[in-house]
């Protein structure tokens, strides 16, 4: 991978982290309300996956999608304004944090009912296959979402009709407060694709390069017309499930371990065929941003000045986004009505 792309990926990870931490602050200040699900810890997945996608591909995401939106290119201004519920938000303040959409960038929405992303992605995939186009759909979901019936129904259809869908599981080990061993009979998520003959693998979701490469490989397969692919990325969220969640169900040692950088032990954990034990977790778990920065540094790609510049740059972007969101006007009831009526074209229908 060329240096520029690597730096861009690092930039996006830094932006993601800065954006989310600031969103948390703004939530504390009362500028953002409602459910706010943040992404720190999982940046390598969004960045690695989305940088492997083409602009013509489609993205379907969940309620934890700010970073997917940002990395896909929706300006921080319009994402932050949406979080503030403002008129210049990407959904004019109607959708909010859990429902970011961007038609132009083929960002097909954040869906807040767990399990909705599967059929939406499958429907887009159906269209692509029917039209015989070279595009693909990327469908995000969590480890908890895997137990929803739509997972099963949609994966069966996607496989049955060879649809170009990449199913991406962000396995952060938790369904809110319920750890994966307590919600899934088969906690190795990727193995659950076996019921549909969908090629599946598990990849270290803390290593952005591994994420990127696995995604590229899967998308290449998909564009060859061989049907859906499935990747499980093992990752971790550093914060609670949402701003309302103190996360007290997680052992302190587990959280600490994931927060600490340790590329050797992650490599060990990575090579395990099954989900790591709590001891292994405790011994492992890097912050993926530090990991990429180290990689770039060691390869001679990144000077500490560049890193400082990047950090300053994203801080400014986020600051500007908050300013923009603050200054953006509120939408009116008439705006709301116009959004609902966006699909009223036909004169015959009143």
């Amino acid at each position, binding site marked *: 991978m060329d240096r520029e792309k690597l730096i861009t990926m690092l930039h996006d990870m830094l932006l993601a982290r800065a954006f989310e931490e600031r969103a948390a602050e703004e939530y504390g200040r009362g500028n953002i309300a409602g459910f706010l699900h943040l992404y720190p810890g999982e940046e390598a997945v969004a960045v690695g996956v989305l940088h492997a996608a083409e602009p013509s591909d489609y993205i379907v995401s969940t309620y934890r999608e700010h970073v997917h939106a940002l990395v896909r290119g929706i300006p921080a201004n319009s994402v932050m304004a949406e979080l503030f519920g403002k008129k210049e938000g990407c*959904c004019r303040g109607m959708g909010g944090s859990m429902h970011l*959409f961007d038609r132009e960038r083929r960002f097909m929405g954040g869906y807040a009912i767990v399990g909705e992303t599967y*059929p939406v992605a*499958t429907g887009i995939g*159906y269209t692509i296959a029917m039209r015989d186009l070279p595009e693909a759909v990327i469908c995000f979901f969590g480890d908890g979402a895997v137990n929803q019936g739509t997972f099963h*129904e949609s994966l069966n259809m996607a496989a049955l009709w060879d649809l170009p869908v990449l199913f991406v599981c962000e396995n952060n080990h938790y369904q809110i407060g319920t750890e994966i061993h307590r919600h899934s009979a088969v906690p190795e998520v990727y193995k659950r694709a076996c019921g549909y003959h969908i090629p599946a693998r598990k990849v270290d979701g803390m290593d952005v390069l591994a994420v990127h490469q696995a995604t590229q490989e899967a998308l290449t397969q998909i564009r060859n017309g061989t049907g859906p692919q499935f990747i499980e990325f093992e990752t971790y969220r550093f914060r609670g499930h949402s701003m309302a969640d103190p996360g007290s169900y997680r052992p302190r040692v587990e959280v600490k371990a994931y927060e600490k950088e340790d590329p050797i032990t992650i490599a060990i954990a990575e090579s395990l065929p099954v989900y790591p034990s709590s001891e292994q977790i405790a011994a492992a778990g890097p912050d993926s941003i530090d990991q990429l920065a180290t990689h770039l540094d060691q390869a001679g790609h990144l000077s500490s000045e560049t890193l400082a510049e990047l950090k300053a740059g994203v801080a400014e972007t986020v600051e500007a986004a908050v300013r923009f969101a603050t200054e953006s006007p509120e939408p009116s009831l008439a705006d709301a009505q116009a959004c609902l009526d966006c699909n009223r074209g036909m004169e015959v*229908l009143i």
Partner: protein
Amino acid sequence: MSDTVFYWQALNQALDMELAEDDSVFVLGEDVGLYGGSYRVTEGLYAKYGEWRLRDTPISEGSFTGLGVGAALVGMRPVVEIMTINFALLALDSIINMAAKVPFMSGGQFPMPLVIRMPDGVAKQLAAQHSQRLEQTLMNVPGLRIAVPATPQDAWWQLRQAIRSDEPIILLEHALLYFSKGLLDTSREAPPMHRARVHRPGKDLTIVTYSRMLDLSLRAAEQLAEKGIEAEVIDLRSLRPIDWATCATSVDKTHRLLVVEEDSCYAGTGAEIAAGLTEHCFFNLDAPPVRIGGKELPIPFNATLEAACIPRPSDIVRAAEILCSR
């Protein structure tokens, strides 16, 4: 131009025309392809348009309806057939929380040119789990439209309008209407999809109804005429929105309202019709609006009880007589 056809044939012809005219139209559902549809609605279309445009699905109502939502997002015009409305209980998240809300939540970026067709109502001894209606469930959802064609002509018109519209539209086709016959004139221009129709003029009371209950109401009106009571019978044709103007004009004239629905009355479709028209016409009403509907029971399997659980023409006649005597 004008022909006597079965209701299912009218739907079949409408689908055929739309499939031919616009290659973004496709149909999906259980046994809509090779089998030709459980009520013959898609007969012959699989051979003509192939498996991608007439897609047989697994039994996965939640997801194939959601698949329709996804396809509509990228500009397709999917026509989802849910084999019967009873199975739509499994697809309500896709309908209510996706199809109806995405255009709004996306800030108006994504229209939703999705049609969902399904037979509803009480058929013949299909028992409680297969005798669902759900009309009022869907009525309460901002962002949806609901059409309830009662005749082959309306079935043809409304299905075509629904497919051409960019809104999510539910078409409720009563299971017992598929094999009813009526005139289909393909040269006539369609009225607006939601326009109610006065099927029979009258001056003594207004009967507001829809779907299969139209036929029963018309039969009751004839019996009433013999007794000297002239009922005006209105077919709503659409449950969301309701064409209040047409209904209110009639009630203001007749001063009496009888609502006939098949489902149990409690919190049913008729509740909105009665409450809405009371708001519009209160000072012109001579008596409280009356609702005739199904009994407050799950539908029994036994044939006699089943028949007793939904309105019969004699029930309508009796209610109208009492109403007119008040």
